[in-house]
């Protein structure tokens, strides 16, 4: 899922300081699962914005709502139900949602309530870890299913580097050296020889270095 976290309240209050009416809009997709921008978090944010504005000696009318997702055109249209109730939208979706609303609703100002952080999973309750960088050219079949792009601090394709000590990364003793884990895991499948294969210089154009990415599926377009 896309993992995100709320921006500092001072930043959010600054965004809406001149608004009279705001729609705090939750997303029931990834950010609900990672407890950053679902309906519950949108209610909390609404309360905090009201309190922040009160402290600044201002009043604000807040409507709190949610969409199934903010990354699909069909759901964005549902914003119409709150027409007239807001000067601006504060979206608790990931950056995709904020962009989608901005793309589709030329008259609507949209502010991001979250910092969109990474593609990850829930390692345990309340803890999320990065697992994928969305680089567009997956090498997981060569690395025992563990991603060196997302999980190596240097995104090395031929690791480990000299900073790997006792299975930990030199950037932090609590960070796993993913290349050590790749080595251990390939070994458990009797595939250690894979480590000897030198990965070629990588073409990063698929990772966004070639500009914004787009997928067109002719079998699905109408």
């Amino acid at each position, binding site marked *: 899922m896309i993992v995100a976290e709320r921006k*500092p*309240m*001072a930043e959010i*209050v600054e965004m809406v300081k001149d608004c009279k009416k705001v729609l705090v809009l939750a997303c029931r997709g990834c950010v609900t699962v990672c407890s950053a921008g679902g309906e*519950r978090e949108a*209610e*909390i944010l609404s*309360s*905090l914005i*009201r*309190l*922040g504005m*009160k*402290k*600044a*000696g201002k009043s604000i009318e807040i409507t709190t709502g949610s969409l199934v997702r903010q990354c699909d055109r069909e759901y964005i249209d549902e914003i119409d139900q709150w027409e007239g109730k807001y000067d601006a939208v504060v979206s608790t979706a990931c950056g995709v949602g904020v962009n989608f609303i901005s793309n589709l609703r030329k008259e609507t100002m949209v502010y991001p309530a979250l910092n969109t952080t990474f593609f990850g999973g829930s390692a345990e309750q309340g803890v999320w870890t990065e697992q994928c960088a969305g680089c567009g050219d997956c090498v997981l079949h060569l690395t025992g299913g563990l991603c060196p792009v997302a999980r190596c601090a240097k995104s090395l394709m031929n690791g480990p580097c000299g900073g790997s000590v006792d299975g930990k990364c030199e950037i932090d003793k609590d960070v796993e050296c993913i290349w050590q884990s790749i080595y251990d895991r390939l070994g458990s499948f009797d595939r250690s020889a894979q480590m000897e294969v030198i990965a070629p210089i990588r073409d990063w154009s698929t990772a966004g270095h070639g500009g914004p990415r787009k997928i067109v599926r002719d079998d699905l377009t109408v």
Partner: protein
Amino acid sequence: MSFDPAITLFSCHYTSQQSCAEEGKELEQLGFPASINLVRVACTGKLQITTLLQAFEDGADGVYVVGCPEDGCHNVKGSIRAAKRVAAVRAALEELGVEGERVQMYHLPRGLHPEFVAKGKEMDARIRDLGPSPFQN
């Protein structure tokens, strides 16, 4: 600056059950501050962050939660959950530039123990010292 604070207390049903005996008169006789509005909840673990924030929106100068001891919660982890939510509210208040001490969590034994009254007095004194809520503007 002297003022009469409004303090909201969310207390666990078990921790506060003796406190409500004789319609709270015993509590009053023991010197429990009149500034505190006691709200009993089935379990403090049920309290949501929004409930605590709403108390501030409704005009509380301070908010505190009294739940079971950490190692003796009737609902196992209810008071631990409550403490985490109080901590989240405290962090949010500080983000807004407001004193985090305006929200507190206490773990107290069941029944009407002297600590229940003592913590009420402590909270009353703390909020009087801090002054009116900055959200009262």
